[in-house]
């Protein structure tokens, strides 16, 4: 055993906040899987404290494993009586644990790719995401690094529903990816760059990006789409019908939108306006996508997803709506692999479908 050394890895106030009551245990998806204190938020904070005081060194296999096994969903923050900012602690932990070459190589590749603005632009050309020049006083849509390539129809649907939202080219990645993968300095820098390029209000269709950007640019400047729509009094038109009845639609919360920003009501209201809303018993728990988690730990990611898919099937819904591209990808892949007839959609796609059932908006 090495001699204890001084840390400086964690903010003292952040680490001291935890009173070890254990109320976080049932909220944690990885504790739910294992029943092992080490994979609970409280257990991980005990590990962080041991790292900080030098009782464990950063090569310790449990520290390495637990820093990676955590989904970073921040569900624990919502039940914590002491107000521990677990998400911030996890960022600091990974900054240290995953510095330089210790970061999983796949995460390094992804982080390098999304920093190439020209690559992101190329994706846009090929995939034809929305584009609209910035206008003074108009909110700008964050195109995202993943979504613009994977789901360009999402940004196009936003523009059709809300033409006042611009979609300027030349935006990079918001930096959430970096912050969650052990490089919070780059995460902050990229967020500030986005803030400079999109100087007014920013609307995003990704809960994860919304939480990261709002932490750096301020809560007032950043709105997740559902939050924006409700705030501007958007009136959803039409309804989505299937086989002569209104569709039944469930929601998968975005963890960072729910746990980081406290937005839960708005997406439900909007769905309820155009379809029969069905609340899943586990709508608020992580789907296992968790940013890069589904790529870095595919097996664990699928294990976390499994009860979610079972609940979706059980609920007898036609669609399940996501408000974050990672969740959307996770649900689509999972439902397809299961041979399910339920389809996963982004919220804005559902609203656009509903509007398509009526005449053009006045």
């Amino acid at each position, binding site marked *: *055993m090495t001699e204890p050394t001084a840390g400086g890895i964690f903010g003292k106030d952040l680490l*001291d*906040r935890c*009173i*070890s*009551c*254990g*109320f*976080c*245990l*049932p909220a944690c998806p990885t504790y739910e899987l294992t*029943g*092992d*204190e*080490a994979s*609970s938020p*409280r*257990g*991980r904070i*005990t*590990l962080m404290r*041991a790292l900080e005081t030098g*009782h*464990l060194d950063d090569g*310790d*296999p*449990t*520290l390495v494993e637990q820093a990676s096994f955590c989904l970073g969903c921040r569900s624990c923050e919502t*039940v914590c*009586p*002491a*107000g521990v900012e677990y998400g911030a602690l996890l960022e600091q932990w990974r900054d240290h644990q995953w510095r330089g070459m210790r970061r999983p190589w796949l995460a390094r590749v992804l982080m390098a790719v999304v920093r190439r603005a020209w690559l992101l632009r190329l994706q846009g050309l090929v995939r034809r995401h929305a584009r609209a020049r910035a206008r003074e006083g108009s909110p700008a849509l964050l195109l995202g690094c993943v979504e613009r390539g994977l789901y360009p129809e999402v940004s196009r649907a936003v523009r059709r529903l809300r033409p006042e939202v611009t979609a300027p080219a030349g935006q990079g990645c918001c930096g959430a990816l970096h912050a969650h993968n052990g490089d919070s300095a780059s995460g902050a820098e990229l967020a500030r760059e986005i803030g400079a390029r999109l100087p007014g209000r920013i609307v995003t269709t990704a809960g994860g990006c919304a939480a990261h950007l709002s932490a750096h640019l301020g809560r007032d400047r950043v709105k997740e789409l559902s939050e924006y729509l409700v705030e501007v009094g958007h009136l959803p038109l039409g309804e989505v019908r299937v086989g002569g009845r209104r569709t039944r639609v469930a929601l998968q919360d975005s963890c960072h939108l729910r746990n980081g920003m406290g937005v839960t009501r708005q997406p439900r209201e909007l769905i309820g306006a155009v379809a029969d809303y069905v609340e899943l018993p586990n709508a608020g728990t992580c789907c296992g996508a968790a940013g890069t988690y589904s790529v870095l730990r595919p097996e664990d990611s699928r294990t976390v997803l499994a009860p979610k898919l079972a609940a979706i099937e059980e609920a007898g819904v036609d669609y399940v709506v996501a408000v974050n591209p990672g969740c959307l990808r996770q649900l689509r892949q999972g439902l397809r692999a299961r041979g399910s007839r339920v389809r996963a959609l982004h919220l804005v796609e559902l609203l656009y479908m509903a509007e398509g059932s009526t005449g053009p908006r006045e």
Partner: protein
Amino acid sequence: MTALPRRIRDELVAIVGAANVRTERGDLTPYARDATPLFHAYPDAVVFPGTTAEVAEILKLATAHGIPVTPRGAGTNLCAATVPEAGGIVLVLTRLNRILEVSGDELLARVEPGVTTARLADAAEAAGLCYAPDPGSRTASTVGGNVATCAGGLRGLKYGVTRNYVLGLTAVLPTGEIIRTGGRLWKDVAGYDLTRLLTGSEGTLAVITEITVALLPKPSHSGTGVGYFRSLADSGRAVTAVIAAGIVPATLEFLDEKCIDAVERFAHLGLRSDAGALLLFGDDGDGEMVTVHLARIAEICGAAGALDVTLAGSVARAEALLAARRCSLPALSRLGSLTILEDATVPRPRLAEMVDRIDDIAARHDLLIATFGHAGDGNLHPTCVLDPDDTDAVQRAHKAFAEIFAGAVELDGTITGEHGVGAAKRPYLADRIGTDQLALLRRVKNAFDPAGILNPGKLGS
């Protein structure tokens, strides 16, 4: 660093499989503590058994080699009952997490010890029934842990505590025998009441692997109200009068002046700043009875000099009233990062007197100790908030709590109402039960656990 010989490790692996035995320092670190501040001790191994038979094999092995075993559920206890003070094995029972049965016909449920209290309560509710004990940590705590510590809760006065609901247990003796105490019976006097003895035995006598609990029909209605008083003495008079009037409310919670102040600064609920005590009351049952009881309680509070009484007309309003109580710990924990939450308990009529003593002790030791708790059953939660780096203050807090426990005993009370003795209250136990009884506890312990391997350093050991 592990003191566990290689061959013992191999035998543990042979019993539960390699995935369920941990001996690396990192894996042991989270098990060096529970929810109790200031108590730390590393185990040598953490073992996760999956069946009663595996528990029996592990205990036989431990007894044969004199290895300490500390059973653990979710580790939410506040008396260091699950801190492995003597090292050895921490036996984690979270894999035993099945609800085996919920019977509406017999009004009972059978569960494994790793089921959380909230899951049991939800399963009962889904069957139109109610599991009455509701300890503060119910969402996280396990039923096994609740039984081992005889956990209390907010509804103690009307509904009792965990011991009042345990009908039967399956438990493994340290020597490996599997015993079944009690069962599906409300009446059964065959033998000493070992079910009650094991309830609250804090893992020092046997390891509980299955629990049969009694359920109640779910009350159809509930209601809540709140009263502000000039002083705790005034609210105490109101509580006495309520009970004298033949009403036993489900909830009777109080906050002292310091708590009201901390909650208001934290949550801005609009609590009255001129009040010396806040009394939260509630009842459940059939609709009309609840309404009548609440109105009568409000009337009695008024007669006892309440500054203000409010009844909740809706669930949302009731939630708002309950927020003050729920916010107590969050609000207090933000005033300092070391939060010591205790549970000295006195007979109900002496509650105000005890809080006065606590205030006096806190002032003499220059500490912030705020008190909230259960006015119905005299169970107080004096909560000391301080900076953990201030070693002098921590020492003063130890002295202050020793005086608080002594004070409670002087008032015919006890050192712990619902948290347990564990390692934290062990030094004060003789003051409460006397040396003869303590010696008897030791003989009982010895009868169950001749090798002294089960949770040494706690309770009767």
